[in-house]
């Protein structure tokens, strides 16, 4: 039987990483993710792993790059301004086809902003914040259990597709406590061996080179097509979402992470009031669950997208729905006191419900 514990979301990330066999953590202090390095510093040294509080987020992402190049599961965690500093390293990791987990317990911005729950890093995460045109896996947990499960999934997907994975959450999901079921983990048996990892040549006569520089005629183009093909395969096979009440829905409310938590309560309020309101929550932000949106909007033509920002994911929703579906948006820029209440969202549901019918 698996064990149940009451833990905070951030701790669930750390526990998930350890369960997935991650033994190398590199970070730099920033609120609201500091529980992760605190937990890792205590646990990893007991386990004989690596914990380094680096001199900066730039150094920590590059330490992650080094450990990952050696073929080990490794991670870093930070929050928005720190994630900005990591972008060059993330681009190099993507270019060098390196897996690895980058956790962003997002805070509000721009600039120093504040520490309130925010989803304003959606663009940076999903459209990629670094240079050169690449993709990373992006997952968006909405519960403590998902913080754990999606951390593990990120490591598996990241290894399989040889691209960095980002876990995007905020202080709401990161700091709330919920029951966590510690499911035992086994490494998927079909994960390809890391035959690219540097070890020193040992018995080999061929070199292993982890790099992103391709100057030969046609080389870089081929390299980029290869990265593109992998991202396409990821899109084909790995879209994940949660749907509820979609069969008879006249209005579908969508959102990810913490906004989806509040939205779901509002959807339940609507159902109790006899309104046919559905709920669709992307779990993977890249790949975006396009198929689920296309399917749901064959019959339902009215959507409401809720975000803790002025609207970012809504662009991907609009690209994914049936052409005659209408997508309304409700969100507020993150900051102290700007978190929408379920009642506020219910009022939005009432405003849009029945409009398209």
């Amino acid at each position, binding site marked *: 039987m698996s064990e149940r514990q009451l833990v905070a979301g951030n701790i669930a990330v750390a526990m998930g990483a350890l369960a997935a066999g991650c033994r*190398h953590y*590199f970070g730099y202090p920033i609120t609201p993710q500091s529980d992760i390095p605190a937990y890792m510093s205590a646990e990893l040294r007991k386990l004989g792993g*690596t914990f*380094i509080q*680096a*001199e*900066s987020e*730039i*150094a*920590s992402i*590059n*330490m*992650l*790059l*080094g*450990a*990952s*190049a*050696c073929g*080990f599961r*490794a991670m870093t965690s930070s929050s928005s301004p720190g994630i900005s500093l990591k972008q*060059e*390293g993330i681009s*190099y990791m993507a270019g*060098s086809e390196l897996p690895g987990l980058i956790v962003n317990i997002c805070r509000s911005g721009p600039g120093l902003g504040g520490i309130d729950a925010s989803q304003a890093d959606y663009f940076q995460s999903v459209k990629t914040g670094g240079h050169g045109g690449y993709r990373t896996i992006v997952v968006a947990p909405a519960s403590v259990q998902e913080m754990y499960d999606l951390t593990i999934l990120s490591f598996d997907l990241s290894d399989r597709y040889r691209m960095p994975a980002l876990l995007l959450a905020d202080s709401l999901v990161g700091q709330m406590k919920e029951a966590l079921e510690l499911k035992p983990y086994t490494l998927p048996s079909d994960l390809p061996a890391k035959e690219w990892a*540097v*070890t*020193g*040549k*040992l*018995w*080999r006569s061929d*070199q*292993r*080179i*982890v*790099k*992103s*520089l391709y100057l030969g005629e046609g080389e870089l183009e081929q390299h980029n097509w290869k990265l593109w093909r992998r991202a396409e395969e990821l899109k084909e096979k790995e879209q994940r979402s949660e749907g509820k009440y979609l069969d008879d829905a006249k209005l579908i409310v969508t959102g990810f992470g913490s906004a989806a938590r509040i939205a779901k309560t509002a959807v339940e309020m609507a159902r109790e009031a006899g309104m046919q309101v559905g709920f669709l929550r992307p779990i993977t932000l890249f790949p975006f669950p396009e198929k689920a949106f296309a399917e749901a909007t064959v019959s339902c033509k009215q959507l409401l997208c809720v975000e803790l920002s002025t609207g970012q994911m809504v662009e991907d929703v609009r690209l994914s729905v049936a052409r005659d579906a209408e997508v309304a948006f409700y969100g507020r820029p993150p900051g102290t006191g700007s978190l929408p209440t379920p009642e506020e969202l219910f009022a939005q549901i009432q405003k849009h419900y029945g409009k398209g019918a």
Partner: protein
Amino acid sequence: MKTVFSRPASLKDVATHFCPGCQHGLIHRLVADAMDHFGVQQQTIGVASVGCSVFLYEYFDIDVVEAPHGRAPAVATGVKRARPESCVFTYQGDGDLAAIGTSEIIHAANRGENFTALFVNNTTYGMTGGQMAPTTLPGQRSLTSPEGRDVALDGYPMRMAEVIAALDGTAYSVRVAVNSPKNILAAGKAIKKAFEYQLENKGFAFVEVLSSCPTNWGMDALAANERVETEMIPYFNLGTFKERS
């Protein structure tokens, strides 16, 4: 017949892309000699930086990771911590190590990371066409100091071997040159010693090698070599600044 001179096994039998008279090639050879000397070619992971030495893997027959500009010491930290059994070295230019990557080198040294750091000081940004570097000498003309480095506006050249030596985490820090047979022999010894420190788990070892960049100094190979003696060594004194036993 006795072989008295041959190509080190760790070095590939290929022509380099370095300009005529560039001393990167010489320094590569000394690093390869050190790997051969300790028989660690098959255990070594090199960390390349961004600069004229970015093609490390084209010349050394070893596993290599390429680091972003300035970040080789952080990448090497990740590599060495993940694979403590391997021999790890970084190879960086002065723009890479002493400008954009100052933070990474200082903190890797200060943590006493157990790898070997090679630092090639040629008083300029070679790869990008000869801009002023943190090591450019007072009065030295460059692409971005056309009137010569003005210390009042541009600051002073940084003596990195001394800076690194001042940190408690550093086990070994030296400055050498490769402009004469005598200096080459001493440089070879220092590089070997820096590998030895790592192989004996003694901690962070740093070798600054004064090097020429005839192309960006606007000199021929001989004049550039001469400049190392007459202008660089007087400012960047050769010597051992830290040697923990």
